[in-house]
C-alpha cells in the first residue's frame, strides 16, 4: 500500500483547558493541492504549527510519507521533506535576497554546519539560489537586504525560502495575506508555478484564490474538519454553507465562477 504524503490521525491540541484542535483526521495524496479554509480562530494556523513541529500535539498522530513526525523538532521535520511559510513574513531581514535563498538551500545540499568550505565555492548552492531567485522574480533585487524589499516582494521571498530546500510537502500559511487583488492573482500563478509536482497545503481567506488553486478543500470549524472534498462538493455541502460560507456568500461564489 502506498502511504499518503501527509496524514493526520485524530490530532488534538489543548492550550490549558481550551481545546483548539479537536480530533482532526486528514489524508493528503502526493501531488495534491489542498486549501484549508475556515472562520477566524478555527485553528487553521494551529494545525500548520502542529504539522510543522512548532508545537507538539496533545494527542494523535502526524505521518509524513508514512513516517511519524509528531514528536520531532521543526528542523528534523524539514529534513524529512516538509517545509512551511508563515502568515507574518518571516525572513532574514539583514541578509540579502540571495543570501536568504542560499541559506535555505544549504542543508538540502548536505553542507550542514561546515566551516571548512567557502560559500563562494559552492557552485551547486549558488546556482540553486539563483534559480529560485529567478523563479520568484527577485533576480533584479539580488543584493538588496530583505528588510528593504516591498511587502509583496517579501512575501515572494517568504515562498522562495520555503520551497528552496526542495521539500515535497509545502505548507503555505495565508501566502496572499495583505496583498492587493492584482498582486494576489499574480502571486497565485507564481505559487502554482513553483509548486508543480509537490504536495501543497495552503491556508487561505480569499475564496477566489481557494477555488482557483485547490484540488480539494478542507473546511476547519472549531478545531474539526467538517468537510474535505473537491471545491464543487464543498461548495454545495450544506454543513459548510451553514457553518462557514453562509448561503449568500455561497451563492455569490457559485455565480462568480
Amino acid at each position, binding site marked *: 500500500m502506498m502511504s499518503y504524503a501527509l496524514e493526520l490521525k485524530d490530532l488534538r491540541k489543548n492550550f490549558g483547558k481550551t481545546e483548539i484542535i479537536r480530533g482532526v483526521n486528514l489524508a493528503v495524496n502526493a501531488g495534491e493541492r489542498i486549501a484549508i479554509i475556515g472562520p477566524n480562530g478555527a485553528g487553521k494556523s494551529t494545525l500548520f504549527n502542529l504539522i*510543522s513541529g512548532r508545537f507538539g500535539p496533545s494527542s494523535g498522530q502526524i505521518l509524513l510519507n508514512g513516517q511519524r513526525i509528531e514528536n520531532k*523538532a*521543526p*528542523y528534523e521535520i*524539514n*529534513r524529512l521533506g516538509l*517545509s*512551511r511559510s*508563515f502568515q507574518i513574513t*518571516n*525572513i*532574514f*531581514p*539583514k*541578509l540579502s535576497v540571495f*543570501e536568504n535563498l*542560499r*541559506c*535555505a538551500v*544549504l*542543508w*538540502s545540499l548536505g*553542507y*550542514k*554546519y*561546515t*566551516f*571548512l*568550505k*567557502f*560559500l*563562494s*565555492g*559552492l*557552485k551547486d*548552492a*549558488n*546556482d540553486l539560489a*539563483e*534559480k529560485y531567485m*529567478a523563479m520568484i522574480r527577485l*533576480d533584479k533585487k539580488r543584493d538588496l537586504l530583505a528588510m528593504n524589499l516591498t511587502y509583496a516582494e517579501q512575501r515572494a521571498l517568504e515562498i522562495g*525560502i520555503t520551497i*528552496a*530546500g526542495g521539500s515535497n510537502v509545502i505548507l503555505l500559511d495565508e501566502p496572499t495575506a495583505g496583498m492587493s487583488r492584482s498582486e494576489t492573482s499574480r502571486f497565485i500563478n507564481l505559487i502554482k508555478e513553483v509548486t508543480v509536482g509537490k504536495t501543497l497545503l495552503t491556508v487561505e481567506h480569499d475564496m477566489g484564490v481557494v477555488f482557483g488553486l485547490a484540488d480539494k478543500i478542507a473546511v476547519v470549524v472549531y478545531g474539526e474538519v467538517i468537510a474535505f472534498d473537491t471545491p464543487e462538493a464543498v461548495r454545495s455541502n450544506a454543513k459548510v454553507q451553514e457553518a462557514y460560507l453562509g448561503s449568500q456568500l455561497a451563492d455569490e461564489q457559485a455565480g462568480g465562477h
Partner: protein
Amino acid sequence: MKTYQFKPYNVGRWLIWSLFAIVLICAPLIFTSNLSGTMLAQMGIAIIACLSYNILLGQGGMLSFGHAVYTGLGSFVAIHALNAVTAGTSHVPVSLLPLIGGFAGIGFAILLGYVTTKKSGTPFAMITLGVAELVFAMSLMFSEFFGGEAGISGNRVAGQTVWGITFGPQIQIYYLIAIYTFICVALMYAFTQTPLGRVLNAVRDNPERVEFIGYNTQRVRYFAFIIAGFFAGISGGLGALNFEIVTSEVVGAGRSGGYLLFTFLGGATFFFGPIIGGVLMVLAFVLLSELTKAWLLYLGLLFLFMVMYAPGGIASLIMMNLRVASFGKLKQVWVSYLGLFVTAFVALIGAGAMIEMVYHLQLNSALGNNLKFMGVVLNAKGVDSWVGSVFVMLTGLGLFEVARRQFLVEWGDIQIEIEKEIKRREAA
C-alpha cells in the same frame, strides 16, 4: 538565467590584507618607544579577543557577559604550559603556546558552552553571566591552578630557541603576536564566508525561521561558541606570554565587560569594527587611565552616547561617511562636522572641569583645593570655577544642539539626494 560569477582575483581584498600586514610589520618601526611597544602588543591581543567576541555578538546575536572566561582560562592554561616548558617537563616551542591556550578555549567552550548555548537572547546573556561568576569564584578557591592573589607567573624565555629567537625582547614577542593577529583575523574573516558563518547570521536575524530550513539553531550557536572560544583562548595565550603573569582578574567580570564595551564601540555590525574596538581598548586602558582618574566615567559616558546615537559603533559611522563620500557629497557637511566637533569639545571641557573637580575633592583634597585642568588652575571649592565650568558646558551644549539640528537637516537632504541618484543609475 544569470549564473554565479566567481571572481578569481579580487584586487580590493588583496590590497586591504596587504595593507593590514604592512601596518602590523611597520607599526613598531614607527612607534619605537617602550610604552608604544607594549601597547602595540596588547592591541594585537585585544583585536583577536574583540573579534572572537564579535562572532558571538555581531554575527550570532549572542550577548555574552562572560567572554573573559575563555580568554582568561586560555591564559591560565598557557602559562601553566609555559612553566612546564621551563621545568623541562614539556617540549612545546614557546611560539606554539598560544595555540595551547586556543585548545583550552575550545575545551572550556565545549564544556560550558553546551549549557550556555541551549538558550538564546536574554536567557543566554543570563547564563553567560552566571558562568562568568562561577569561574571567577572558582579562581579564588583553587589557588593551585589560579595562583590565588598573586596569580601565576612565568618566564617566556624557556625551552629550545629557534633561529636564536628567545622571545625575551619586547620586539620579538610583538612580532609573534603580530603573526598570530594576522592569521587569526584572516581565519575569522574566512569564517564569515562559510556555510556555518552565514547560517549563524541567519540565526541572529531570525532563529525561528532557521529551524524551518533544516538547521538546529542550538547546534549553530554551540559550534560558533566553540570557534569563538578557540580564538579567545589564543588571545589569552598571547596575553600570558606578553605579560608573563596571569591573575584571576583575567577571568573577571570587568574584563568581560571590557570586551563587550569595546566591541560595541568599534562596531559589531561590520567585520572590522572590533579591530577598531581592540585598538581603542588598549588606548583607553593604558593612555586614558594615565591621563585622568575619572577615565572609567568618561568611557561610560562615551558608551552611553554611542548606544543612544550610533548603535552601529565607529565602524558604521565610517561606512556611512564613506557612502556619502563615494557620492561626492561629503564636502557639503564638513562645516557642520566642524561645528559639531568644536561645540562638543566645548561642552566636554565644561563637563570635564566639573568631573575633575569632584574627583579632586573626593580623592585628592589633602593636596589643597587647587587643581590644574587643561592649563587652567581651578579651585574645586571656589564659586568662580564651578560657575565658569557650568557656563562653558551649557554654552557648549546649546551650540552643539544648534549644530546637531543643522547637521541632521543637511544629512537628511544628502541621503535623499543619494537615494535619487541610485534610482537614476538603476534606470539608466
